[in-house]
Each structure stands twice: as C-alpha cells, then as structure tokens.
C-alpha cells in the first residue's frame, strides 16, 4: 500500500466527519499555538533585554544605598556622598564615577500631564553611560547651570499634548525627593533636545529630563546622592570591581550590574514562561487525549468498514497505518493552523511581556515606558512546532489504530 493512498483515504475519512475533525484539530491548534507564541515572545524578550544591556554597556555598575528602591526590610541608613565618589574613583580599573539624583516628575503641557523621569547628573557622563546618545538640537547645559536641562525626544515630542521647543520653559512637579513631602514645583529651560534613543539601563531615555548635578543638589537640599554610576575600563574587570565594592561596603550598598539586572529579569520572565508553558502543555495534552477519544469513537463507528477492509485483504499493519495516517493528518493540519495562530498570538504576548521588561528599574520612580518585544522565530522553533504536534497526534492514534487492526473480521462484518 502506498503512503500517498493511505493519506488520501485518511483525508476522505476526516472530511466525512467534518465537525468532529475540526474540533479535534482545534484542540491541537490552540495547544501548539500557545507553546509556540510563548517560546517566540520570551526569546524576543531576551533578545530585547540583551540589546538593552548592550546599548548601556556592560561596563557600567550602579551603586544605590540599600534602603532605596530595592529595600528588603533593611533599616540601613547609609547615604552615598562625595566621599564615596572619591573612593570609587580610586579603585583600580575604574575610570570614572558619576553620582546622580533621580526623581519622578509630571510635566504640565497644554493642560495634559506627562510622566517623566528627572535625572541630575554630570552631563559629561551621558556619552559614557549611553552609547551613541546625541543632541538633536541646542546643547547640553554647562556644569553648574541649575536652570537648564537636556530633555528627551519623547518629552519634546509627546504623543499627546503640546510639543516643547528649544529654549522653552518646562514646568515640572517633582516627586520622590527625600525629606520633602508631596511634590516640588521646578522649572527649567530646554537648552538641548536629545536625539531619539530608546531604552537603556531599563530607563526610557526619551522620557527623561537631564539636569545638572548642581541642580539636583539644589532640589534635594542634600549632599547625599540617589546613586553612583561606576564606569569600569575593561569589561573583564567588572566582576572584580563589583566584588571589591561589595566587600568594602558589606551590605550598606547595593551594587547593580547590567548582567545582574538581566538575570533577575530573565528569572521573572523564566517563571512566567514556565507557568504559561505548563498551561500550553496541559492544553496540548488535553488535545492529545481528544485525539485518542475521537479516533477511538471513529474506530468503533467504523467497525463494519474495518471488517470490509479485512475481507478484501488489508493486512493488520495496513489497517493500523490507515488509522495512524488519520491521526497524523489531524496533527499536521493542527500544527499548521497552530503555527499561524501562534504567530499572531506571539505579538499579543510580546506586548504583555514588554510591559514587564520596561519598568524603570535603574532610576527608580517615574512612569512606565515599555520596551517593544519583537517575537523571535528560529528555524528550530518552527520545525519543532510543526513536528511535535504531529508526533503527539500519531502517538495518540496508536491505541485506537491498534484496536482497529486487531478486530475480528467476522465480528466486525456483522456489526450494525
């Protein structure tokens, strides 16, 4: 018996029971779509995070006092000051240390409130921290200038609200200043507008307003910084430097490296993937049981037909093959439909995971600014998502097909 004929007959049998076949195939489709979209979008998320890290540079360490954003019940009150900057610069392998203040802010623009981050930092640090960040218009404020700011592309060109032009006034309501209750009003002149850049160090640069370190000192009325960026000369020394710092401060200070952020985010997305993946696996398992059920009922209904096949000389193996072909065909159709559905679904899921990956981890406060997740479909993934459902379906068909092949011809022919 030729394989082609086996599948042609299987196709005719599936067509004969359209509704049932479609429902069975639907099960496989949904199961494999969920798994496919999960793997594709989490691969996309990882690729996105890696790109983010690369943009920032793997040689940047962030120091924060442990009572800050990452507080974990610690009563530590250590504050980072200029003294620490001096110490950090003295560590071998460190080429620079830039202290910064960061706050959340609301900008009033044409009656609309836009969420933004405000970072007070030595402007000379920007090129070192953000590879390839350039000024689109105007210039960055000079050191000690407390009235000017370099504003992100997204602040200058908001999605809704009035655009802010060069040398225009930016009125902000700043939150998250230590020691002051509520919001503090502050206004700066937009002396420079940064070019469109995107996300780096898990902050959306386009939604950030950079003011001078001196302005931060004025705002905070405090010599204590929110954090310090440490720039290591050689990427290979990052771990050594991190260890030196950690040993020096014991638990008073948190040292965050891009690699650490990456692994912690991957940890979260990994758990999410496992969770959703098990839902997908369960649905695929249910679909497989569905095939067993459909095939079994089909074999029972077609008892007489099996008797006819036996009478006209079909061997047990051929009969088994015919039913396996039906199961496999169910899997093949389900796999292709699953690929299409999974492709669509992965963009939906990419949006969900993107929100998770885009929090302002490094800068603390401020609003959300998601990163765009583009699902990644590797050849291996596509092959897997086409082959795996077919294998599952074929396995599901084994028992019913075996039952069919073992039927007694005489009994089967009498079956009504």
């Amino acid at each position: 018996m030729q394989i082609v004929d086996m599948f042609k007959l299987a196709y005719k049998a599936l067509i004969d029971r359209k509704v049932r076949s479609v429902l069975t195939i639907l099960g496989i489709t949904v199961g494999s779509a969920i798994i496919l979209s999960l793997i594709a979008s989490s691969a996309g998320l990882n690729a996105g995070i890696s790109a983010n890290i690369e943009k920032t540079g793997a040689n940047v360490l962030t120091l924060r006092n442990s009572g800050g954003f990452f507080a974990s019940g610690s009563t530590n009150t250590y504050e980072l000051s200029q003294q620490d900057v001096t110490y950090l610069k003295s560590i071998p392998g460190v080429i620079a240390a830039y202290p910064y203040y960061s706050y959340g802010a609301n900008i009033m623009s044409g009656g609309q409130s836009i969420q933004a981050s405000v970072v007070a930092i030595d402007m000379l640090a920007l090129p070192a921290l953000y590879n390839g960040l350039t000024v689109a218009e105007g210039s960055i404020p000079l050191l000690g200038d407390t009235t000017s700011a370099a504003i992100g592309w997204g602040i200058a060109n908001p999605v809704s609200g009035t655009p802010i032009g060069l040398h225009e006034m930016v009125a902000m309501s700043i939150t998250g200043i230590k020691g002051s209750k509520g919001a503090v009003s502050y206004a700066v002149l937009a002396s420079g507008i940064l070019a469109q850049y995107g996300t780096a160090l898990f902050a959306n640069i386009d939604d950030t307003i950079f003011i001078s370190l001196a302005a931060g000192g004025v705002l905070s009325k405090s010599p204590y910084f929110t954090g310090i960026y440490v720039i290591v000369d050689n990427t290979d020394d990052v771990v050594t430097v991190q260890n030196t710092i950690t040993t020096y401060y014991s638990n008073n200070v948190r040292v965050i490296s891009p690699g650490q952020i990456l692994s912690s985010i991957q940890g979260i997305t990994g758990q999410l993937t496992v969770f959703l993946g098990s839902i997908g696996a369960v649905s695929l398992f249910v679909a497989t049981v569905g095939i067993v059920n459909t095939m079994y009922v089909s074999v029972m209904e077609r008892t007489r037909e099996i008797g006819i096949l036996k009478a006209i000389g079909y061997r047990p193996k051929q009969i088994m093959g015919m039913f396996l072909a039906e199961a496999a065909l169910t899997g093949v159709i389900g796999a292709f439909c699953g690929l299409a559905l999974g492709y669509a679904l992965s963009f939906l899921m990419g949006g969900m995971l993107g929100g998770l990956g885009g929090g302002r981890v490094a800068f603390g406060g401020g609003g959300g600014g998601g990163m765009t997740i583009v699902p990644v479909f590797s050849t291996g993934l596509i092959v897997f998502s086409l082959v795996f459902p077919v294998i599952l379906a074929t396995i599901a068909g084994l028992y019913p097909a075996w039952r069919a092949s073992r039927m007694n011809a005489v009994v089967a022919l009498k079956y009504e």
Partner: protein
Amino acid sequence: MTMAQRSAPSVQTIDVTKVYRVGHVDYPALRGINIKVERGEFVSIMGPSGSGKSTLLNLIGALDRPTSGRVIIDGVDLKKLDEDRLSLLRNRKLGFVYQSFNLIQRLTSAENVEMPLISRGIPERVRRSKSIKMLSAVGLTGKANKRPAELSGGEQQRVAIARALVTEPALIIADEPTGNLDSKTTREVVDQFVQVNKGYGTTILIVTHNAEIASMTQRVISLKDGLVDKEEYIQRIDSYSMR
C-alpha cells in the same frame, strides 16, 4: 503456483468443525464438514437458519479459523498461514459479495472497486482504468463517480461484484447476495454471477435461501445442524433461459 496446486480443487474442507463458546456453554456450529468444490464450479449452499452456512463461508473465506479440521483453498492449507498471509490470500484469490453490499459509503463506486487494488500498492491511474472497465462489465457505465447512497440496491450489489472481480480472484464467495433485492434485480444479479462463472471461469460459492437461485447453480450442498445433509447436481438444459 505449482502444478500440484493447479490441479488441486478450488475448495476442500476436511472434517471441519467450529465450536462457539458463550460463557461456559459450547455451541457447535459445524460438526465435521467434508466438501470439495472443483475449479470453475458454481455451487450453492442451502440450509435453514443456524445450519452453519455462514460459519462455513467464513472459514472458506479465510476470515475465521476452524476449531478442528482443515480448510484448503487452491491447494493451500489455511492452517499454515499467519494473519498477514491470510490477508494476502483473501486479496489475491478471493472475492466477497454480501447481502448488505458492504460498500464504504463515503467513497465513490470507482473508489470502492479500487480498494483491493490500493492494498496491493497499484498506482492510481492503473487501478482507475481497471475499476472503470470492471464497472462497465457489470453494467454500471457512467456510475463511477456515484456514491452508494446515490445508487439502487441492485446497482450497489453490482459495485460489490465489480469490487470482488477486479482482482481476478479464483473464488468468489457470496453470502445471500440477493437477500436485499427485489425479484427483478435478483435475476439481474444472478445473471451477472452466471456470466462471471462462464466468462472468467471463476469458481463461485453462493449461500442462498432462494431455491430458484440454487437451481441456477450446478450443484446444491444442503447443510443441516452443522453437517452436510445432501448434495445434488442440478440437471440443467439451460433451465435459466427456459423459464
């Protein structure tokens, strides 16, 4: 096929018994059948319900195995064949025609006729021309693409006959093939069998309740209570056309 097989009878049963066991009770359906059907013979098997006709047919059709005794088809002892070889034998040497036609409803006439050829792995073009030819031979020209539901009972039975003939079998086994047909169609179908028997020299074994049909065969074997009751040769001076 060896010379010994060539000269052997088409069908031979030697002391064949068949006992069905239901629970702890044995029901003997056949109690020692010895018959011999020569090549090219047209033989009918008659007998009341429960006399063992269908059981005997199933044994000769290699669909079931006897409790004891031997069934020899074309010189081959079925006892020596495993499940696969029995299937092959059915495909190569036997053709079945049933009272209820036993066609596959979702397939067309041509596809039904081709089913035994598909099992042999014969390419689609070759088997299609064979099935069309065979359908024409049984008077179903132009009905190749009709499904069983679109055909009359007589037409369906002729599709079944075409399916039995397409493999050019040595022996056709028919189990009350006219049981579901009216008298006019019955005559047409029996006529078909007579033609096949004469035209191709195919051995035909037909189980029937109908004495008129039996009278058109060459020999009648009557069964009663699982034993051969009597065997009689029909004296025929072409009785069929004389009617």
